Structures are given as structure tokens and as C-alpha cells.
């Protein structure tokens, strides 16, 4: 968290929700793909569902 971030101008809704929207899509892909099949579909599911696991950990660790 740098000081430039907290003093920067007010952000638009699309900027605020850009990352959350991507995460929402990734989560959806992860939840659906493992339903569709096994093997590669499971792998895709683990990969995409790892995003909501890893991102908060990364954000807090780097701060």
C-alpha cells in the first residue's frame, strides 16, 4: 500500500470491480469445469479456484 494510492483520485466503478469481476469469472469456470468432466477439467478447476485462495494471501503478504 503506497501513499500515492490513498491520495489518488476517486476511482470509477469499473476500476473498483475489474479484479473482482475477473475473479468471479474464474471461480465460475472452476466450479463448472469439474462438473463437466474429470482429468483436465478437474485440473482447470483447481487452477481457476486457486485464484481466490492465492490472491488475498498475496495481497496481505506483500503489504
Amino acid at each position, binding site marked *: 500500500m503506497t501513499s500515492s494510492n490513498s491520495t489518488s483520485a476517486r476511482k470509477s466503478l469499473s476500476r473498483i470491480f475489474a479484479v473482482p469481476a475477473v475473479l468471479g469469472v474464474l471461480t465460475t469456470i472452476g*466450479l463448472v469445469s469439474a*462438473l463437466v468432466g474429470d482429468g483436465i477439467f478437474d485440473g482447470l478447476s483447481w487452477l481457476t*479456484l486457486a485464484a481466490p*485462495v492465492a*490472491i*488475498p494471501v498475496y495481497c496481505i503478504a506483500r503489504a
Partner: protein
Amino acid sequence: MSASRKSFRRWNWVHKWSSLVCTVFMLLLCITGLPLIFHEEIDELLHEQVPAAQVAAGTPKADLDRVVANGLAREPGQVVHFLIWDPHDANSLLLSVGKSLDVDPSTNRFVRVDAHTGEYLDAPDVTGRFTYIMFKLHTDMFAGLPGKLFLGLMGILFCVAIISGIVVYAPSMRKLSFGAYRRDRNRAVRWLDVHNLAGIVLVMWALVVGFTGVINTWADLVIKMWQYGQLAEMTSAYKDKPLVVRPSPIEAAVRTALETERDMKPSFVAFPGTLFSSKTHYAIFLRGDTPVTSRMLKPALVDAENGQLTDSREMPWYVSTLLLSQPLHFGDYGGMPMKIIWAILDIFTVAVLWTGLYLWFRRLRSARSVARMVSLSNASKRALHAS
């Protein structure tokens, strides 16, 4: 007050109260749900069971009538409700048995029988198990259908809290980057950041798990709907018949059912007079082979008086919705890595609930202290005037 300010306050109110009402129950659900993700592994670790014979591929299965007879021989006074192909072990079959056909099948015991030798394995009492206690706390808090429906209501509030949380997330992030964590600030700020970050990241997963959980609380009602709907239609010509006296062989009935769908496998058989069948039919529930279709059941009704197929239909949408909502709630359809992801996201949810509760408590306290200061200053002003 501007319109947007007003609407923010309204959403804030919705977020605060929907969360506050359900938080304690959501904490209970998250904590009891955590071990349930791994219930098979925990049961395997804590409880011995007689293993089924390991056989070479292609070994013929035991005759199902012998399986049922062998299972019942060791359980005098019990009747079979359901014959179930163990979803976790292709070498064993489960008999769900109760004192009579009228008892609530959720209180039934499971008798395990070897699928190849047809030998009785064991009939463990699961009701004292750790996983059973967690399961009961998680599904109905030992309060039956009212408990279930109550938890379903809490689940709906949880979904409302998530959606209103998205709305109030925006104004609080106006001046912050995504993922901001103000490490050097006091706990209230740090925990607000954790609440916002974990909350927004979890939105989709928590909505899916939350809402499919709500759907699961309606299972009993869905089953009743199916009984009085599709099942009643399929067996309407038989509705006045008494319970079949000498039922036809189960093995033949299952073979007849399998002929209707050659690509499907048997999931379970409901015996005549039980919850999932008529008094004169075996209901053989068939399933597919993929993660989705293995949960989608297709019932075939076989007349237990003559062994003839009566009808076979796709389940109505409301049953399919329930069946599909189960894996999405349990997280058991993508192997161990998915279970671990489920567990971590569950723990993140606890963090969101806990930080939310803390933030509310902080604000309550500071609002009180402001109120106290205001009343003190009013009192001193009055004192000043009086003097």
C-alpha cells in the same frame, strides 16, 4: 442528503442487519462444514470397518436377492428400505434398514454387504460418530425439518449479506486499490481491509455454496413434491393396491430397469412401500457416469408383482436442481485438491464473518461513546446556562 448517499445508507443497513442476524449460524455452519468436507477421510481414520474382498476386474457380482437375504439374516426384525451401490467403494453394497417401512428413513441403519461374495460385512452405528454430530449440527441442529428450514432462512440472509456487501464495497474502495491492506494502521482499519478483500474475492464461491446450501434445506419438501407429483403420476393405476406380499426377485427387476438405459448404472433401489416408491413397485434409480450425470438420477419403476417395467422417466426440474446443487455445496466433485480449496475458502469465510462482527462491535462502541460525549456536552451546556 444526496440520493446516492441515501441509497448507500440503505444498502449499509441491509448489509449490517442481514449479516448480524445470520452470522452466528453461519459461523456454526462454516465450523461444522469444515470437517464434513473430509468426512470420508475422517471416518476412515477414526473407525474400523470390515473391508470388502478385493477382486480381479470382471469378477461377477453376487445375486442381489442373496445380498439382501444375507444382510437381513444378521439383522432380525428389520426391513430393507433401500439397496444402495456404495458410491465410494464398488466392492460393497449398502442396505438401508429400519424397524418397519413406516419409520423415517433418515434414522435407518446401514448394513454393508460384499458386492461380489454377497457376504455380510458389518452394520456400524454411525450416530455416535464425530462426523455424524457435525452433520446433524450442520444440517438441522438436531431440530428436524424446522431446524433445516431455519438454517435455510439464515442461508438466504447470508446471500442477501453478500449481495449488499458488493454494493457497499464500492464506496469504501473509492480511494483504495484492489487488495489494499493497510498494515501500519490500527486493528479496525486492518480488519476492515481483510473483510473487504476476503469478502469480495469470495463473492462467487460463497454465493454458490450458500445458495446451494439453501436448496439442500428444501430436500424433504422436494422429495414430497416428487412423491405427490411424478411418482404419483407414474403409479396412478396402482394407487389403491395394498403392499405387495411376495415381491418378485430384485436381481431381475434391476436387470429390467437397466435395459431401459444401457449406458446407465444403478444408483439405488427403493423397495415397495418406501419413501421413493409405490406399494407395489421397485423404484430403480439409474445414474450416468460423468461428475454431473452420476448425480442425475432416472427412476425406472418395476412392478414387484410380475417383474414388468411400468414406467421410466427423467426427473422433473426441481429434483434435478436439488441433485445438482449437492456437489456444488459439498465440493466433492473434483478430487482432494478441490476439497482442500473448499476448506481454505471456508476458513476465509470465517475470517470475513469474524472481522465483520468485530467491525460492527467497534462501531457500536464508538457510536455509544459519541452519544455519551454528546449527552455529556449537552449536560455541561445546561449546567453552564443554569449557573
